[in-house]
């Protein structure tokens, strides 16, 4: 075991409520930072993924390179990816966000392409027959029909990012990860448990609320499974 975390306490229980009640401000700040880091990462990820996804969908030639590049980014372990950036961007939020955004791209682009690809040919034919021009058809026919798949991608990206944010504790950010790291450094279980439980809870809340958002904005897809 590491050094004892709390002097004078021989037995360290899994949870000490008095520590929690005395550190609510720290816990709250960590939670808020965790949400901020996640929202910025997934938001920027979507902003980058939409044009790249459209490109990969429209121009099949770009599909290979787009998927290879984002696939490589996705495969590189997070700690290594952050390390590549540190000599240039330092121990900053920027380093954390570049890494986190990189991980969302493959998931988001893949689901955008799958979603747009799955629009039935008859529907697109009908839209063309009704006189839709390219951009109008994309905005009013293809894209809305792809929304369930796209949101499914955002759900996976959000849950994955919430987990990865904890690793950014090692480069000075971390959100709830800073509580987990604190638990490790001081060999003190309570912050570890609080950080883990809140992180899992946040992932569940994000997943469930995105799923309900999808049901609300695409009522026609209700009852149809989207993976």
């Amino acid at each position, binding site marked *: *075991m*590491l050094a004892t975390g709390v002097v004078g306490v021989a037995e360290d229980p899994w949870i000490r409520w008095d520590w929690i009640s005395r550190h609510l401000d720290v816990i709250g700040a960590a939670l808020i930072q965790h949400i901020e880091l996640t929202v910025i990462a997934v938001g920027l990820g979507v902003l980058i993924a939409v044009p790249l996804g459209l490109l990969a969908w*429209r*121009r*099949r*030639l770009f599909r290979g390179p787009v998927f290879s590049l984002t*696939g*490589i980014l996705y*495969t*590189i*372990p*997070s*700690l*290594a*990816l952050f*390390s*590549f950036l*540190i*000599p240039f961007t330092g121990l900053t939020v920027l380093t954390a966000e570049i890494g986190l955004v990189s991980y969302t791209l493959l998931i988001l682009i893949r689901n955008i392409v799958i979603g747009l*690809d799955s629009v039935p*040919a008859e529907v*697109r034919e009908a839209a063309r027959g009704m006189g839709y021009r390219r951009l109008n058809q994309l905005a009013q026919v293809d894209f809305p029909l792809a929304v369930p798949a796209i949101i499914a991608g955002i759900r*996976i990206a959000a*849950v*994955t990012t*919430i*987990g*990865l944010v*904890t*690793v950014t*504790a*090692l*480069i000075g950010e971390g959100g709830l*990860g800073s509580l*987990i*790291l604190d*638990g*490790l450094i001081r*060999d003190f*279980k309570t912050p*570890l448990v609080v*950080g*883990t439980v809140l*992180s*899992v809870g946040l*992932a*569940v809340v994000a*997943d469930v609320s995105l799923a309900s958002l999808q049901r609300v904005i695409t009522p026609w897809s209700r009852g149809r499974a989207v993976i």
Partner: protein
Amino acid sequence: MTFIGQVLQWFLDGAHWQGDGGIPHRLSEHIAMSGISLLAAAVIALPIGIILGHVGRGGNLAINISNVGRAVPSFALLVIAVELVGIGAVPAFIALVALGIPPIVTNSYIGMREVDADVLEAARGMGMRGRMVLSRVELPIALPFIMAGIRTSAVNIVATATLAALVAWGGLGRFIVDGLGQQDYPMLYAGAILVAILSLIVEFTLAGVQRMATPAGLRPSKAIQKEERGSLIRRNSGRR
């Protein structure tokens, strides 16, 4: 340019290639730990996924275990293991096995459910019995999915083994964690390069194995492949 030079110099320094802290030893630690953890995860997860898929029960469990696995941060898993058994190789092993199990369970379950009921009917009609149906029909059809699960787990395990340097274990993460701690950026960078290359090799190798694991009858036929190639050339022809 100077920084790249420093990294290169780090790699060329003979001292970094010798002894317990050298690249060969750290690399072999990383590979051994990842390999043993993957093996243990597969031994636990494959029977669960295959049996659930074969009998067609517990689908919710088999599929949701991956979602739960994604929601639990691997960093937290590692620290929890430390609190349970102390620091060193053992908690690293426990955390890596735990995080390797879900993708294998889910994918092998899905693979088994992919087998068409008509195909099973035909196999039984040809006189195959339970175990034979499993080994000659179901498993070969499920194999590409099973391999996909193993590949996902392997990449996750190799990545998280890097974090295990935090809990006083070795592996390539040692260079990164020590590089961070000592602000030795050439070492940090060298460690990151080694870890990234190892991960990409694992990913590409297992992707190749996954392709080879697809039974010939299930591979896209030559005609379809030709059609795919054709569509690459006459892209945007309104085929979709």
